[in-house]
C-alpha cells in the first residue's frame, strides 16, 4: 500500500513535469490502448484507423502512441500508468473491460484526459466515455437474417454478457422476427473478444445445428472463414470492420465502426482548449456506425428493405427499439409506440420475448 502510494505520488510529479514539457513543445500526445492486435481485421483495426486519422488531421502537432494486446484487468492499469507517465495528454481505452482501470488511473493523473469506449463510469472529471449505437446496425442485419434464412435458425456469437452485446442480440432478433415470425435465435457465448480458433468452433457448432445466418460480436474474421467452408449455404456479416475479403458471400453486409471523426474532434478540442467531459453515443446518423455494402448475394427487394431501415434510422424517423416490446419473461418493457430510453439500453440485462435460453451472469 505504501509502495503504491509512493508510486502514485511519483507518477503525479512526473506527469506534471512531462505535461509541462509537452505543452511547452506544443505537441499533443494521443495514446490508444487496444485489447487485441491491430491486425485482427475487426474491432482493434478500426480503432487504429481512427488513431491514424488523428495523425493525418493534425500532422506534426500531434504525436500518437499505442499499445496492442493489453489484457483487461490489472495489466491495463500498469499500461495506463506508464502511458500517463510517458507524457500522454489524452488516452483512449478501447474496450469495455478497461472501465475500472481507466477510472482508477484517471484519479491519479488529473491532468491527463481519459476516454473510455463503451463504458458508463465517469468517476472523475477527466474521464469521458464514448460509444456507438451498434444496435442500429444490428437492426439492418436482423432484417437481412430474417429474410435470408432457409432453416429459420439464425445465430449470434456473443463475446461477454454485457449490455453492449445484449442490446445487439435483442435488436438483431427483433428485426429478424419482424420479417419472419418463425425465426429462432441461437446464441453462443465465446467468453473472449479475440480467439480465432474458438470463434470458428462456435460458428461450426451453430452450423452443425442447422443455423444458416451467423452474426458475430467478437473481433476476428474467423466466423466468416468458417461460414465460407459451408460452400454458400451459410451467410454472415462483417463485424466492426468491413471484412470485404469475404464478399460477396458469406459476408453479405457489415457494421463498420468509424471512430476517426470522434477521435479527431476530441483531440482537436483538447488542442484548442474547448475540451469538456462528455458522454458521446452516436450512431448511423452521426456517421460512427456505417453499414457496409449489401452485396448481390441478397435479393434486390431484401436489400431495399434493409437499406430503408438504415435510412429511416439515419433520418431519425425510426428507433430500433420501438414498443410494444416485452421482456423474455413476458413482462412489459416498452408500451406501444414508446422508444427505449438510453438508460435502459446501457444497463440492458435481459432478452426480449421470444429468445430462448438464459444470459450467463
Amino acid at each position, binding site marked *: 500500500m505504501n509502495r503504491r502510494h509512493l508510486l502514485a505520488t511519483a507518477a503525479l510529479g512526473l506527469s506534471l513535469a512531462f505535461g509541462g514539457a509537452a505543452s511547452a513543445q506544443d505537441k499533443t500526445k494521443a495514446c490508444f490502448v487496444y485489447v487485441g492486435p491491430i491486425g485482427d481485421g475487426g474491432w482493434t483495426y478500426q480503432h487504429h484507423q481512427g488513431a491514424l486519422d488523428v495523425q493525418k488531421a493534425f500532422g506534426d502537432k500531434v504525436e500518437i502512441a499505442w499499445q496492442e494486446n493489453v489484457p483487461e484487468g490489472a495489466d491495463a492499469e500498469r499500461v495506463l500508468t506508464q502511458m500517463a507517465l510517458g507524457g500522454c495528454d489524452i488516452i483512449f481505452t478501447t474496450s469495455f473491460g478497461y472501465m475500472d482501470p481507466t477510472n482508477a488511473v484517471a484519479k491519479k493523473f488529473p491532468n491527463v484526459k481519459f476516454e473510455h469506449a463503451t463504458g458508463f463510469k465517469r468517476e472523475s472529471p477527466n474521464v469521458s466515455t464514448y460509444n456507438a449505437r451498434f444496435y442500429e446496425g444490428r437492426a439492418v442485419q436482423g432484417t437481412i437474417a430474417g429474410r435470408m434464412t432457409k432453416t429459420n435458425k439464425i445465430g449470434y456469437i456473443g463475446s461477454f454478457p454485457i449490455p453492449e452485446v445484449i442490446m445487439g442480440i435483442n435488436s438483431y432478433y427483433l428485426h429478424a422476427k419482424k420479417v419472419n415470425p418463425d425465426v429462432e435465435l441461437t446464441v453462443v457465448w465465446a467468453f473472449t473478444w479475440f480467439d480465432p480458433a*474458438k470463434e470458428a468452433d462456435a460458428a*461450426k457448432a451453430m452450423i*452443425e*445445428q442447422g443455423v444458416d445466418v451467423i452474426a458475430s460480436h467478437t473481433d476476428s474474421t474467423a466466423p466468416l472463414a468458417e461460414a465460407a467452408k459451408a460452400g454458400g449455404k451459410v451467410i454472415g456479416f462483417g463485424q466492426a470492420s468491413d471484412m470485404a475479403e469475404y464478399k460477396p458471400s458469406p459476408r453479405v453486409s457489415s457494421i463498420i465502426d468509424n471512430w476517426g471523426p470522434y477521435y479527431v474532434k476530441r483531440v482537436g478540442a483538447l488542442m484548442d482548449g474547448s475540451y469538456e467531459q462528455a458522454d458521446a453515443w452516436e450512431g448511423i446518423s452521426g456517421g460512427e456506425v456505417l453499414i457496409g455494402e449489401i452485396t448481390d448475394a441478397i435479393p434486390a427487394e431484401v436489400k431495399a428493405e434493409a437499406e430503408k431501415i438504415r435510412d429511416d434510422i439515419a433520418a431519425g424517423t425510426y428507433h430500433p427499439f420501438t414498443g410494444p416490446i416485452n421482456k423474455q419473461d413476458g413482462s412489459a418493457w416498452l408500451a406501444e409506440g414508446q422508444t427505449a430510453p438510453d438508460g435502459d439500453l446501457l444497463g440492458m440485462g435481459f432478452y426480449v420475448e421470444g429468445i430462448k435460453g438464459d444470459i450467463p451472469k
Partner: protein
Amino acid sequence: MFGGIDPALLIASLMVASVPILLAAIGELVVEKAGVLNLGVEGMMIMGAVCGFITAVVTGSPALGFLGGAAGGAGLSLLFALLTQVMQANQVASGLALTLFGLGLSSLLGQGYVGIKPPHTGVVPFGPLADIPFFGKVIFGHDPLVYLSVLAVAAVWAFLRHARGGLILRAVGESHEAAHALGYKVRRIRVLAILFGGAMAGLGGAYVSLVRVPQWTDGITAGAGWIALAIVVFASWRPWRVLLGAWLFGGITVLQLNLQAAGSGIPVEYLSMSPYLITILVLVIMSSGRGRAALNAPASLGQNFHAAR
C-alpha cells in the same frame, strides 16, 4: 442424436479441434523427456502458423504449407537451442523470450497476408469407407493432419519405449552427467529434440492457420501453446495420455459450444471452467498416488549441461 447434438459430428469436430495442441504437446513431450524445458511453444506455434500460411499461399500447395510451418517452428527453436545449449542461458527465461519474439516476428511477417484465403486442404479420400454410418464421419472424414497427429503419438510412444535412440534420449533427460559419462553427446541430442519440438509446434500452428481457421490474423494461436505445455504435465510425460489430454481439452471446448448452440440448460460458466476443473482433479489424483507423477518428471528437466562442470 442426444440433447440435439449429433455425437458423430461432435466427435469428428473434437478430433479436429485438438490437432494443434496435440501436435505441439507431443513435440514438447520429447523436448522435456530430453531434459529441456522450452516454454516457447506458443511462439513456435505462431511462427509455424505464419510461415505455413505464407508458404501455402505463395506455392498454392497446402502440403508445402505444412512443411513450411514445421520449418518455421524448427527455425525459431534453433534460436532457443543456441541460447540454452550453446550460450547456457536460463531455459525458462529463454523460452518466455522466445514466445514474445515469435509473436512479434509473426506479426511482422504476416503484414501483407491479412485477409487472404489459403488453398483448401482436402480430406483423405477413403472412398466407400466414408459412407459407413457413424464411423464414416468419425474416423474416415478428416484431413491428413488429423491422422498424422495420432500417428505421431504412436511413433513417439514406440520410439521412447522400444527404440535405442529413445532410451538414450530418456537417459539424457534423467541424468545428463551419467549420459555424458557413457559417451553420449548430451548437447547434440538435446538440440535435435528441441528441433523436433519446434517442428511439431510449427506444424500445429500451421494447422490453425490453414485448416482450423483458414486465414492469417495476428495472434491467431491465442494461447494454444500454453495449453499444450499444460497437457504435457497433465499427461505426466506419457504419450498416450497426451492424446487423452488433448482430446479432453479440445473436446470440452467443442462440447460446451455445441451444448450452447443446441440450447441445453447447463449454465455456460460450468462448461467453460470444466477443462480446468478436470485438470486440477487429475493432477490431485495423480500426485496422491505416492508421488508417482513427481517421479515421472525427467530428473534433469530444466537444468543446463556443460561438459566441463
